């Protein structure tokens, strides 16, 4: 939030997350080198540099497949949300691994020659005429560049400077980079005369990542309601919203709206889009009377959509009214941070359980 920036806002959950993450990374790299080295007689084993290079690449590929799965997994089952909370650290760790892979490859395959390494990388032979001749290393370089941009901006400071929407768009490039990685693999290691990577690996990855994303499309927040585009629209069955929890309302052509019910049966509506990383506020809950984002715990006052001081984030608010015991939402967003009264539904109308 906007109370000053530090490199990492450490807490116990992040430390446990990072310890497990790096234990896994080290285990994957060491296991890769040891298993590969032991799979052939010592005299026939690949060079130790090559073993490390491929172990870094393989580990990076595993991490990328986990990182891309966390979003849809959290959408499919909210119990995965703790993995999403510190996904940023997994992303930066992933970048460190693939950067080492890239530098190793650049030095080993393109270094020590009569041409400087980067020139060699982009001027090496290969044609676009046949798949087997297509140069694959520039694809990896472009993917690495995208990963660098993402890692370098993986901080709330850059999120604030670039703006959440641009920042989000930048980070959505991960899917472009993922495609480049698949091509890098398919046109590179898999094209080698004797590849250590089975041909099914890219397809399995596409099924895993693509499948989870497709499944998650069908797992939109359970209470999405399409209310059309009238100014005032009825909020169906508001008393089925549990106390202290929100409901996401889909408004055609506009940002989604999050309607929350307080412990006192008061209702308020704010934008569903968290100012931090566009997390779905309506899928969060109220803690200490504040709407709390399920992704990273950013909080907003239901009364005016503003974060409690000293934080400065604000989201749009919406008017609600009650007519004949029915709750109506004005779909016209008020400027971020605009106060408006909460409305209270009579207890006798409660259908909540």
């Amino acid at each position: 939030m906007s109370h000053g920036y530090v490199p990492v806002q450490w807490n116990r959950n992040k430390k446990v997350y990072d310890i497990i993450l790096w234990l896994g990374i080290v285990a994957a790299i060491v296991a890769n080198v040891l298993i590969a080295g032991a799979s052939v007689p010592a005299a026939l084993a690949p060079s130790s540099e090559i073993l490390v290079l491929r172990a870094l690449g393989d580990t990076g590929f595993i991490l990328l497949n986990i990182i891309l799965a966390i979003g849809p997994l959290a959408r499919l089952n909210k119990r995965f949300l703790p993995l999403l909370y510190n996904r940023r650290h997994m992303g930066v760790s992933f970048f460190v691994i693939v950067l080492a892979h890239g530098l190793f490859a650049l030095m080993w395959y393109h270094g020590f020659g009569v041409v400087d390494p980067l020139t060699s990388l982009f001027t090496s032979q290969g044609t676009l005429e046949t798949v087997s001749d297509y140069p694959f290393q520039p694809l990896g370089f472009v993917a690495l560049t995208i990963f660098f941009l993402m890692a370098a901006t993986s901080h709330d400071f850059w999120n604030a400077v670039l703006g959440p929407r641009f920042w989000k768009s930048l980070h959505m490039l991960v899917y472009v980079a993922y495609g480049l990685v698949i091509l890098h693999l398919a046109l590179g290691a898999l094209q080698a005369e004797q590849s250590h990577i089975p041909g099914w690996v890219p397809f399995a990855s596409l099924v895993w990542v693509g499948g989870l994303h497709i499944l998650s499309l069908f797992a939109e927040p359970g209470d999405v309601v399409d209310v059309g585009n009238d100014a005032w629209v009825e909020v169906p069955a508001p008393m089925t919203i549990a106390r202290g929890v929100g409901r996401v309302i889909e408004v055609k052509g506009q940002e989604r709206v999050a309607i929350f019910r307080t412990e006192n049966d008061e209702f308020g509506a704010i934008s569903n889009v968290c100012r931090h990383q566009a997390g779905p506020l309506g899928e969060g809950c109220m803690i200490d009377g504040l709407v709390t984002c399920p992704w990273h715990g950013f909080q907003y006052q239901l009364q005016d959509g503003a974060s409690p001081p000293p934080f400065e984030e604000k989201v749009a608010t919406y008017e609600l009214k009650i007519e004949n015991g029915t709750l109506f939402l004005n779909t016209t967003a008020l400027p971020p941070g605009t106060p408006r009264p909460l409305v209270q539904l009579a207890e006798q109308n409660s259908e909540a359980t």
Partner: protein
Amino acid sequence: MKNPFFVGYLPFPKALKPFFQWVVPLFLLAGIAFVYLISSEVPAAGTGTWNAYDKVSITGVVKAKPYPMIITSDRATHPVLVVQLGKLDATEILAPLDGKTVLIEGFMIERGPWQMMEIEGPESIVEAPTLALASPLESEGMYVSLVGEIVDSKCMLGVMKPGAGKVHRDCAELCVMGGMPPMLLVKNDRGEKAAYLLVDQDGNAVGRRLIPHIALPVEVEGLAFRMGDMTAIKVDPTSVQALQGPAKLAFGESIGIAGSSSFCRIPG
């Protein structure tokens, strides 16, 4: 609430711990299982060795063409090729010393009958008392047509394992660009491999003219001849044919050797 709500800066919800007590190990196990699947059958990378930490000295007579090599008393018929550190040849260093006896020190690279010495620079060579060692006798040529892969000799003989294939192609190009002797690596249907030094039609270094064909399945035609126990092929770079269609698909499965015995066979 259906699920306990996690907020990163608050204590981890106890109700979520059982879930992560199986999810985290499951992810780790899946990762390790994947690592095992892709690492347990790594292809053999050849028997080449590179003794990069064991500097040795040899005395012999310099033969500068087609590629710099040293003829020694115990390697009179199969001289030791000489290159520099990195991806650089040693032509400029050894050409002025053609026919002279030198004491040369460096790091040995070996695969099968092939030996190569990697030297650090001009300071690695000093002239030595003359030895009466003749260049290996050259046989008459035999026309051959071979299917294989053009590689740089330094990596293929042991500096890079594997030192062939598409992943290694850019490195092989740089090596050959730097003057490294190119070789044709062929493999018969029994998996036996043989390496042939490539020279141009006049018996001189051919290197850079072969760059467009490096690390690709090709068919090479030319006169094969022996220099002592070494086999070289005089090749016209413009006649090297890239394999197409089924022949290309079969590359790596069963590379046929037509019209040639498998001399200069290399293990692995």
